[in-house]
């Protein structure tokens, strides 16, 4: 089975926790991945600082919006969504002011 390729995007200020890099194309080793699994992977592999500003109670911190292929993850069972090959998952922080 091939690796699972997904595109991750961080914006709205969330990118500040990822070396200011907004776009990450990552390869996940083949198995069934939920977003909950992905969040742990992100914490271990991508998150550069202050994980508490991104994660809370096995989910993202309240105030961070998540979209999968431009669909609100609240319509997709949030952390339980099963990631598909080439999904584009966007994390947007709403917590940053102007």
């Amino acid at each position: 089975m091939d690796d699972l390729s997904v595109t991750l995007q961080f914006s709205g200020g969330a990118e500040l926790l990822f070396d200011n890099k907004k776009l990450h194309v990552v390869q996940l080793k083949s198995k069934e991945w939920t977003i909950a699994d992905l969040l742990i992977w992100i914490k271990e592999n991508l998150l550069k600082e202050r994980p508490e500003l991104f994660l809370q109670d096995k989910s993202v911190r309240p105030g961070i919006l998540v979209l999968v292929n431009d669909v609100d993850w609240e319509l997709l069972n949030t952390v339980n969504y099963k990631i598909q090959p080439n999904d584009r998952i966007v994390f947007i922080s709403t917590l940053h002011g102007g």
Partner: protein
Amino acid sequence: MSECSRKCGSTAVLKRPKTGDKLCKECFFEAFENEIHFTITRAKLFRPGSTVAVAASGGKDSTVLAYVLKELNRKYKYNLKFILLSIDEGITGYRDDSLETVKQNRDDYEMPLKIMSYKDLYGWTMDEIVTEIGRKNNCTFCGVFRRQALDRGAHLLKVDYLATGHNADDIAETVLMNILRGDLARLSRCTSIITDSADGIPRVKPLKYAYEKEIVMYAYFKKLVYFSTECIFSPNAYRGHARVLLKDLEKINPSIIMNIIHSGESIKVNETSKMPTLQNCTRCGYVSSQDICKACILLEGLNTGEPKLGIGKSSKVKKSLENRAKTCCGGTSQCNSLSST
């Protein structure tokens, strides 16, 4: 994949926090814009033919506000003119970048832009103030000065209204904070959709009932460009405990935000509570609950090498002002101290 709750046949892209509706992109745009239109018309926010200054920081709220106002003005023929009004606090690496976004807004939305700087208005940039006072309390200066700078800008531009991008989450947060602080005067007026400023130019909040989530989703789906970097002087301090509490509550039940606003609107403040009366600052004429407004006291402190002068409770500040009066010339010469005015 869920279908749009409006039965338009399209696929839903988001769940509305306010109603739980699942909407497609087009139905969401329409619902979001129509609610703001409803807010504007129900409160009779703008007189036709008026000029409106839009307080623009380059952030998500003011960017969406400028965009939606332009759309609604066109669609519903409000007959309004808009000017973007930005404040340059003088924070290198933060505001200089966000002002570039505002300039983009100016070009995209074809609205003239006026930038007012702390340096011009007060003689101090925030960079200089932070050098003087350090990183504690600097937000006090910035907040007090910005509020007044916007009013001064609105006055200078001779506009009829000043519109700010405060959203439902902001208002609910302010209600909570005023309850936590026991600040009844602010509690009773913080939910008003229209408030009067010093020069009688009303401040209005067209996004008062718009959820932050929807504002960000709207900007995302419309591909609006906005700026979202933390202020370099207050990393992580941007919201504080009230915001965290509110976001945690919203996760349990999103209508809590609207309920808090509703509570704030309905609270009747006990008449026997001590309420400050608003008057005009004897120095600059700005609306103040004290003889001398907070901005003038803060400036006085900066200019006389005592930058902490205006920090803290107003009763303490009053005391230190009285002490200054005793030690200085007492108003007989040009010592430039508050007591001489």
